């Protein structure tokens, strides 16, 4: 509460919530927010703020991949029509670079910094979430396809429903490394299989 009050004291107007229910913080209406700040300390603060907003936005909308060419998402997030300001692609790249440094994002190695995965939840967290779901629903010791985890009927109400393939792969890598599960090659990514062993055994 006190933090909201102190932010409000800075005198920026609050944008109305989006149709999706997401509410941008009022700093989103601050014109310099859309200019890459040349002063190092100011820039660090600015990049932190952007990283936080991007992660909040992606979490709210269950988005995983940031694509500089995906105009639909970028229009909402990086373009503020109210104050007529737009974050330039270079600035977005610089912000993602900062996020990558902190482990909050990862560039798609083949995209030449056009696409990045935003880890609004770390693979370790996803791993814990998925494995606990598997054990709770008694699916351990049986083989599940990636498709069943990400898009199956059983996981419909789960947070990882529609999880991005890359994120899912990262999560599985974590589980395999821990020795909790084993993966099986499939014809394509969605047919890849995974078997969870008995927990903690």
């Amino acid at each position: 509460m006190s933090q909201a009050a102190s932010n409000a004291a800075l005198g920026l107007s609050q944008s109305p919530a989006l149709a999706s229910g997401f509410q941008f913080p009022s700093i989103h209406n601050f014109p310099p927010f859309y200019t890459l700040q040349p002063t190092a300390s100011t820039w660090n603060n600015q990049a932190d703020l952007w990283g936080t907003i991007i992660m909040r936005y992606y979490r709210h909308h269950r988005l995983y991949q940031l694509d500089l060419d995906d105009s639909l998402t970028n229009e909402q997030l990086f373009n503020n029509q109210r104050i007529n300001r737009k974050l330039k692609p270079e600035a977005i790249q610089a912000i993602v670079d900062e996020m990558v440094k902190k482990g909050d994002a990862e560039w798609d190695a083949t995209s030449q910094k056009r696409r990045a995965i935003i880890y609004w939840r770390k693979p370790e967290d996803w791993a814990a979430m998925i494995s606990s779901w598997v054990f709770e629903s008694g699916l351990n010791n049986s083989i599940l396809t990636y498709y069943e985890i990400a898009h199956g009927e059983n996981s419909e109400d789960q947070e990882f429903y529609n999880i991005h393939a890359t994120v899912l792969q990262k999560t599985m890598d974590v589980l395999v490394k821990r020795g909790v599960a084993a993966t099986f090659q499939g014809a394509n990514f969605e047919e890849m299989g995974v078997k969870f062993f008995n927990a903690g055994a």
Partner: protein
Amino acid sequence: MDRWDPIQLTSTFRPVLEPQEAIQTTQDQVGLYDGQAEDYPNGTVYLTSYRILYIDAKDPTRKSIGLPLRLIHGVQHYSGFMSSSPKITLDLYQRLAIADPQSSSDLISSQGTTSGLNANLGALSLKSEPSWVCAICYNSNQGAFIKCAVCGVRKPQESLESTTTTPTPDPFQLSESTQMGATDSRDSARRSDFGSVTNPTTANGLGTDTQDTPGIACPACTFHNDPFMIQCEICGAELQDAESVAFLLDRQQQHQRSISQLPSTIDSPSPPSSTLSTGTNQVSDSNALKTTGGNKFMPSLSSFYTRTASGNGSSKQSPEDANSVKLSFRAGGNGNFHTLLRAALAARVWDSKPKKRVAESSTALPSTTALETAQAAPSIKVGGISGIMRTVETNKKATDETLSQAFQDLQGLMDKAAEMVALAETISNRLAKSNTMDSEETVTFKTYLLSMGITSPVTKDTAGAVFHKELARELVEFILPIVEREGGTMSLMDIYCVFNRARGVELISPKDLHTACQMFQDLNLPLRLRKFDSGLLVIQTMARYSDDEVSSTISKRIQNLPPGAGLTAVELASAIQISVALAQDQLLMAESRGLICRDESVEGLRFFDNLFAKWEI
């Protein structure tokens, strides 16, 4: 050394010059001695049109002295040999002849005796007199004015104490002398010559004190006017006024003097064709006067004699060697100095000064102009208030004339530069007195006037080797108040413009300005040259405006703006009256300190308070 007087210095240890005085050359590392103690071993010597000034390098406040050029009667040049520096020896006039201020001013020009030109003496004697209020029209006049600037009535006698020794001619005797024919005046001149030779006090006695004068009877209506009036107070008729007559006579005599080179007869031997057999120095003088054969004005003539006599008497008392002083040029420059000194001595500007004064009277002595015009056009004679009004009108006309003449061509402007500055000062003084100061126009006009005003700019010709040092000093004197008004910082470009504008004609190059500014620190002047990261050069006052202070001021200014409003360099520049380039640099400085942040958009670069640092996620 006893003839050298202490001189006034400016805050940057440059000499304060008289009006009309101009620096001819400057030379540093000059020693000054008269064969005895070396009290003045090393300093900067300035040669002006009137004086030689010595400013000590080590102790400028106490050891700065000046010698009027008129006291020099000879110059010897020694070009130096082996380790001996080049020297210039100045031979001075006898001591007692100039010990008395009254007779020293007589030495320059014998007009000292005529009241009309006493103002010149006031200006020469380097004293600033208090201003006085006219008893007739209550106009407040400058102390140097002998007459009221508006109505022409003379200054009250009690404030003229310094000049009361000057004999004031008897109006009646004067009118008598003017009525005399040419041959008569010659005789009378000789007669009065003898009178003055035999008894100098009689010569002084010729003039009766004006306090005792009963007043001038108007030739038209017989009204007894105040002796100071030039026109009848009742009917406006021209009075046979002592001053105006004396003034005219004096100008004629001065003209003759310029032809006959009268002062040179002091040193020259007597002319061979001597008709009078008294055989004294006075004979040669009276001969010189006789041969010129013009109108003589007795009191001035007699005082001239008195002075010569006293000069002769003193020669026995003062030792010969004290009458010369040596300038030792350790860093060269003696040749140039010698040439210019000779030129200055030959020019005898102090002799022509009264003439200049008359020409300039439209600005400095309006009453003289009024007097002249009144004499030139005697057909219109109005007394009382309308007379005063007309005088004011005449002054206005004269001022207009000066202005139009000044702008006729560049040469004219250069000639009139000093007058223009004097005029600007007069107008700004008048504006300061009047109560219309609140109008914006007046304020603007006043700033224009004030921005004119370097009367004797430092040039490469006059300053020579020390040009940049002198320039730096002049610059600081001129620019310091302006920089303070502008908030402590001004870009070099702005300074270049303002400074050159004030100099008027002797413009300097950007390089010279830059070089001069780089010397601020060495000369221990209160300004500093500073280079911003962007390459912008500025002049700053010392200490008062640190970077931190400027940054926090800007940050506060931005915080006080309505939320969401930023500040551009242009807005900042106009808000605190600095140049845009400087404003931009100050904003960038504040930004680099993390106090503000930028917003680049199609509308340009705006700066905002740094909310990123304050925002809590």
